[in-house]
Structures are given as C-alpha cells and as structure tokens.
C-alpha cells in the first residue's frame, strides 16, 4: 500500500541531447556490425537470456524424469546429456555472459565514458560467445556431450565417450573462454583508463568494482581451463596421455586444473550480482551504501581467497589430512568477507526510506536465499560432514541456492532496475511483484527439499532412484516446485516483452538513481553524454540533483502534487 508511483513524480532532470546518426543501412545490418557498447550489451543480455530459457527447459525435462521412482521417461543417455547441457549452458552461456552484458551496457555509462576502450574487440567477444553457443548446441544434431559440466577424465576420454559431443564441449570452453578473456581485458582497460574526471578509486560505483574483480578473476582462471581442455583434446585425438592412468597420466590432475578454474568461476558468476545488489539497495533505501570501503574491499578479499579453495571440490579424493585442513580453513574464511557484505547491505536498509519496488524485492529475496546457500556452503566445507554430502543432492541444492537463488535473483533484480534505462519504458510493477513471489515460492519448493533428499542418500546425476529409498516425496515436491518456478520466470519474460512497446515512458531517472547512467536519456543516445559531469562523491547523481534543485529553485517540500506526465 505504501508503493509510490515513480513514473509520475517530477524529478529535476538534466538531459543530454541526442545525436542524430543518419541511418544509411538496414536496421539488422546496423545490429550485426555495431560496435556500440549499448547495442552489444543488449545482444549479450537477450541471447544469454535465451540460453537461460533453453537451459530451463532442459531442467524441467530432468525434473519430469525424476518425478516418480524408476521412471523411464528418459533413457539414461538422454538424462546424462541433459544435465551436461543444462549445467554447461547455465554457467558458460547464461550467468557469465549476462553479467558481461550488464557490464557492457552499464560500465561505460556508470563511469561516464562514451564507449568501451576497445569497441571492436567488444563486438568480437559477443560474436565469439554466440559462435561458441552454436557450436555447442549443434551437437544436438549428432550426439550431445554426456560427461557432466566438469567432464572428469577418464570418463571424458575417447575410450569411454567417443562421441563428438565431448569435442563440442571442449570447443565451447575454448571459444567462450576467448570471448570472456577478450571481454575481461576490455573491461579492465576501460575501468582503469576511462573514468569521468574526479572518479578516483574511492568513488567507483560498487558494480564497477565487482566487474573489475570479475575481469581479473577471468584473466587468472581462464588460461588454466583453456590449457586443461586442450590437453583433453590432445588426449582424445592426438595420442597424448596427460590424464590416462594406464599410461602414467593422472585423472586427478584434471580435477586440480578444472577446479583451479572452477571455483573462481563460481565467484565470477556471483560477484557482479553482489555489485548489482550493492547498487540497488542504496537507491531504494534512499540512503548511501553502508561501509562503501568494506563492501569494495570484501570483493577483493573474496577474489583472493577464491583462488585458494579449489580442492574443497575434491574432498572425496585422497589428500593428506593437513592439506585437507588448509582447504577447509580457507573455505571457511571465504565466508567472512561474504558475511561482511551481507551485514553492510542490511545496515544500508536500516533506517532508510525504503521504496518497495520490484528491484528491491529481488534484492531482499536474494539476501534470504543466498544466506541459505552460504550456510550450506559451510556445511560442505566441513570435511567430515562433506564426506557424507558431496556428490549428493545436498550439493545440487547448495549450488542452486547460490547460482539460481544468488545469481539469477540478482540478474532479475538488475533487469528490473535497468530495464527503464535500456528501453525507456517501465515494466508493470504488479506483474513484476507477482513474478517475484511465484519464483520465490517455486524456487524454495524445488530446492529446499533437495537438501533432505541428499542427506537421505540420493546421489546426484542419477536418472532413477529406487522406490523404497524414501526419496519419492522429496522428488515430487521438487518437480512441482520447478514448474511453479518456470511459471514465475515466464511471467517476468512476458512482462519484459510486453513493456518493451507498451510500458509507461520512464524518463531519464525513474528510480532517483545514484550513478551516472541515470544522468542521460533512456535509452541513452549513441554518444552517451554530451557533457561528462565532474564526479565529487560515490553518488554523483545525488549531487547533480541537489545542484539542479538549488539552481532551479525547486524545493523538496513544495512538490506535493504529483503531476501526470507519463
């Protein structure tokens, strides 16, 4: 009942003027050949979201198969292919690239730049991503990969998985890897060199901080996985034996290489989400972020620790006890900076003047869900307990709490927050909130019970489970929940599609934002800003609004009657 109508409130506005580019070419050629970071960002977001929907369909097929014990809806082969496609798609074609999409669109706007440092390289990374996705999904026409998203050797060796699907998986890693690497270098160069005058490191928006660390982690981790999959490729086809135990190679080497990349990858997926939440909370709490320095520093600490914890994915592989102790401790410690972030976010909300709009819903929902994912992460880091839990549905529940609940809720938060900027229109708020609740309920229904299934002894990646193992009820709840979740997601999709043309006109700054992207029009003109303002704090837009208010003589209290412009 306390909702306010943002669109209809007059906000003092400073406008950039649109530069009219003459249109000489057809529209689609424009999109194909563009080097504009905003168009590239949109293409990133739309295409990775399409991959999300494909991955979601794969997930639902798996949930149907698991709805009853001893089901034969899918063959074991199809089931193995589905979870491999699903996991790989969600990670390499959805979460990582959609974060790159947000960064593409908003990073230059937030730091007051006119484009990325290397616009053509930027286009290259988009097209490589799409190309990688196509190579990967083309394997559907022959035989998709089936060794899981971490493709453990020797199972992924030619002897046990002769199909070309495994090679398609390797090329996907190569191609999207290059795409991410090129993107990461570009983000780094842009952030370091192209900030608006006055934007020192202490005034960098927190989302930009997380993208900086995201880029560094990608640059650190990707070469390792690229090397590893190249070794796998030569093992498969060119007679090397890096991972072949019968010829003196080591399957455990693959695991070390994979997880040295794989764990940082987890933070690559979640850190930009943290950044989105750190932007959204202060805007909707109408209050500065609490502990800016602590939030920024904790990002860096998380990244540092993330490079030291990889072996916690290998707790069922023999490792000396002391080494286990080390990885257990480092995994524990990573919870400290994460906790710092959560406490600062809550302190940001505290005593604010909270606008209960859809981005805030998703941000608050994210906190609740992510805390569960973080706590179960601690359980998994406790080696003796993890012994019982690893490779079970408890792990499946844990990483879906972190990735689906963590990353996806922040992505929806970002989509709702920035949608008006990208399209110039507002989404329907009631539909957005309804979608939130359906997703929230569906999500918890799907994944909360999976903790119990795992504790009762259900291993992951099984296409059937026995009828007498006490797992039937859990799986049925989970399957129903996954369809509820699917409906919730579709409601948002419908909202985005419909509002594109029919939503209320947003104006440049519908949320009273803090950062520079709200300084320009929605959607921003090709050159972003006519004039780049001087930055004097972490919240340049607040300063600008104040200045405008002062100069134009508009005072807070006089605005009592919302006008109806939109």
């Amino acid at each position, binding site marked *: 009942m*306390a909702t306010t109508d943002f669109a209809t409130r007059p906000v003092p506005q400073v406008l950039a003027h649109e530069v009219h580019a003459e249109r000489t070419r057809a529209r689609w050629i424009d999109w194909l050949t563009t080097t504009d970071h905003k168009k590239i960002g949109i293409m990133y977001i739309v295409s990775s979201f399409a991959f999300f929907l494909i991955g979601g369909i794969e997930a639902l097929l798996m949930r149907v198969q698991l709805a009853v014990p001893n089901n034969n809806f899918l063959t074991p*082969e199809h089931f*193995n292919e589905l979870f491999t496609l699903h996991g790989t798609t969600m990670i390499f074609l959805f979460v990582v690239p959609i974060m790159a999409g947000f960064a593409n669109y908003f990073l230059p706007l937030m730091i007051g730049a006119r484009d990325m440092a290397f616009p053509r390289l930027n286009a290259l990374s988009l097209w490589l991503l799409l190309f990688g996705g196509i190579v990967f999904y083309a394997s559907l026409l022959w035989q998709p990969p089936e060794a899981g998203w971490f493709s453990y050797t020797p199972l992924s060796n030619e002897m046990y998985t002769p199909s070309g699907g495994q090679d398609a998986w390797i090329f996907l890693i190569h191609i999207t890897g290059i795409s991410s690497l090129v993107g990461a270098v570009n983000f780094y160069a842009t952030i370091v060199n192209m900030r608006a005058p006055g934007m020192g490191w202490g005034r960098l928006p927190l989302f930009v901080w997380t993208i900086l660390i995201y880029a560094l982690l990608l640059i650190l981790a990707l070469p390792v996985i690229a090397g590893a999959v190249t070794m796998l490729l030569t093992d498969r086809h060119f007679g090397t034996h890096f991972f072949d135990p019968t010829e003196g190679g080591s399957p455990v080497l693959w695991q070390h290489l994979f997880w040295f990349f794989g764990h940082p990858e987890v933070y690559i997926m979640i850190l930009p989400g943290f950044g989105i939440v750190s932007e959204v909370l202060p805007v909707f709490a109408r209050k500065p972020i609490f502990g800016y320095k602590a939030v920024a520093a904790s990002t860096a600490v998380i990244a540092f620790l993330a490079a030291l914890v990889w072996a916690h994915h290998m707790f069922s592989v*023999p490792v000396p006890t002391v080494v286990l102790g080390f990885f*257990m401790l480092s995994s*524990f*410690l990573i919870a400290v900076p994460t906790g710092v972030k959560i406490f600062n976010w809550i302190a940001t909300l505290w*005593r604010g*003047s909270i606008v209960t709009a859809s981005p805030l819903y998703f941000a608050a929902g994210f906190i609740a869900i992510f805390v569960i994912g973080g*706590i179960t992460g601690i359980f998994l880091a406790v080696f003796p307990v993890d012994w019982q839990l690893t490779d079970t549905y408890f792990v499946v529940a844990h990483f879906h709490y972190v990735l689906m609940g963590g990353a996806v809720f922040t992505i929806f938060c970002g989509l709702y927050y920035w949608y008006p900027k990208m399209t110039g229109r507002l989404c329907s708020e009631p539909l957005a909130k309804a979608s939130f609740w359906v997703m929230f309920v569906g999500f918890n229904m799907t994944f909360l019970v999976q903790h119990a299934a795992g504790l009762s002894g259900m291993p992951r990646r099984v296409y059937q489970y026995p009828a007498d193992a006490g797992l039937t009820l859990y799986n049925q709840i989970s399957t129903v929940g996954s369809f509820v979740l699917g409906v919730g997601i579709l409601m948002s999709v419908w909202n985005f599609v419909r509002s594109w043309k029919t939503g209320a006109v947003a104006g440049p700054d519908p949320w009273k934002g803090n950062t520079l992207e709200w300084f320009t029009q929605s959607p921003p003109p090709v050159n972003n800003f006519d004039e780049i303002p001087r930055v004097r704090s972490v919240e340049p837009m607040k300063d600008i609004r104040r200045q405008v208010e002062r100069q134009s003589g508009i005072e807070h209290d006089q605005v009592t009657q919302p006008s109806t412009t939109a």
Partner: protein
Amino acid sequence: MRRHPVAQMVIVGAIASAIGIVIALVIDWFPADAAEQAGPIDTLYDVLMIVSVPVFVLVTTVTLFAVWRFRMRPGQENEDGPPIHGNTRLEVIWTAVPAILLVSLCSYAYAVLVDIEEKHDDQLVVHVTGQQFAWRYRYPQPGGRAIETTALVLPKDRPVLFKVHAEDVIHDFWVPAFRVKIDAVPGITTEVRATPTKLGRYPVVCAELCGLGHAVMRSSVRVVTPAAYDRWLQEQTAPAGGEATGGATAGGEGEAGGGGGADLAALGRETFVSNCGSCHTLADAGTSGAAGPDLTTALRGQDEATLREDIVAPDARITEGYQAGVMPDNFAETLSAEQIDGLVAYLASVSR
C-alpha cells in the same frame, strides 16, 4: 509496542531460532547409522545446525523487519534516509565475530577428522573395485588365495579398512549408513575406514558419474555377527564343487547357504538378487529395478542358450527400447561358472 521495535524483533528472532533448532535436531536427517564413525559426524552436523539456524534467522528477520519497518509511506516520497556512510566499529565486530566462530568450528571439525581417520591394529582389509557398473570385493587371506565376491559381508564391531580401486573410470564408493565415501580412481588406491556397529543390510552406492549405468551402480553390505562372518568366510574358501570362488552366497543371517550340494536355482536366485536386482524387476525374486527390461515378462519362451548369452554377452542382442553399454559385459569374469549356471537355471525356471 511502537517504542521497542528492536526488542520486538529480538524476541521474534529468538523464538524463531529456538523453533528452528528444535526442528533441526528432532528430524532424523541421515539414514540409519551403522558405524562408529557416524557418531562424531552426526554430532558435528548437529552442532553446525545449532550454529547456523540463528545466523539464518538473524539475517532474514533483520532484513524483513527493515524492509517492513522503514518502508516509504505515502507523503514521504521526497525524504531521504539519514546520510550514514558507515561505522568502523560495527565493521570490525561483524568481521571478527564470524571469523572467530568459523575458526573454532574449523578446529573442531579438524579434531573429528583426525579422530575418524585413526588407525586400528586388528583391522580387516577389504579391497573394493569399481567398474562400469558394478562393485566387486576381495578379501585377502593370510597365506592363501584371496576371496573374490560380489557381495560385501562384514563382521560387526571390527574396524575395516577399505582399499578402493577402479578398473575403468572414476567411481565413488559410498555407504551412506557408514558415512564413508571415497573416490575410486583408476591408477591409485584410495583408503577409507569404518567400524560397523549394527547388524543389517545397507545400500552401497556409486556417487560419482561413471557413465550410463551410474544410477544403478548399487550393491549392498551385510553386517553379520563375527561367528556368522567366520562361517561365511569358510564357505568362500572351501571350494564348492571344485570352483575356486563361491561368490555371493547371501543367505539369511548366520544360516549357511548350503555349501556343496546347493540347489542350483536357489543359488541363481541369490545371485540375481545381489547382482541384477538393481536393474531388473523380477517378481519371483522380489526385485524392482527399472534400468533394464522387466524380466518377469521379457523372458517368456527364451531357451537357456539365449539366456546365457544375454548374461555373459549382453551387447550381442539388444532388447528393443533399451541401450547397449548399460548392462555390465563381464559377468563371465565377475561371477563363477556355477553362479552363471545357477542364474540360467533360475531364470529359465521362472520364465516358463
């Protein structure tokens, strides 16, 4: 009431935590515990629950409370919250307190780890081998040939050291009731310990993706009294009818499976239950697996030669609607000739 919103929140939080902890402790999350190692692990798990429920409740109640209490009300559209930028003391507190909590939990967990890995003198060594998609067990005998079986039988109260091997790809030897889980990695031998403490039959599960039959790579472990275990060992060593290994004479607790003159079909039935039941439904044997065809009906009218071929060379003829490569193709090696004869006789008798 309006004057003490924080007090209110603390009370709600405390009650919610208490309820949460009670629920967490009352519900029996784990499967039956049948080994000494389960005790400290389950206690550790309970401690983790007790610590984490209040953390969860704290974060969620404060978040919900803040959103509700400080929501913007009509007329406040242009008011901003107070310009608070941070508080160093608070930052130090909420870095230090969780850090201390976590380091102490970590030390406790390390102590448990050292405890359950403790070595024992009188331990029984059992070799476990994973292959696509079955488990095999080998019991080394002092001064004699090792016993090879497809059924895992263990004496109660004797520490066991499992030495785990893999033939082809990585598998993972998991006995949920013992709380032990260790990867079976080709090329290296991994070790894990457990001391069974309760009589009974418990599932053995493969927890690492190993190919198409991963879901059905199940077996079971039977914990018996030491006397029954000795008898079982003797049966295995005293060759039945000239065969070197007796395989899975998984008779009832303690009572012998019947040595030399065992009825062939009865042996076949036992072999079926422990080797095939996880994939095949067969009414007579009371199994309900669904990875392979339902043998109650599928075998109608097949002669013994076809049956034998179906078992020893399953990929020679693929039943429609199923895939090659799921049913293990080395039963000729892992089962004794007698067991296979038994299986054929048994299946022929039930499918008539």
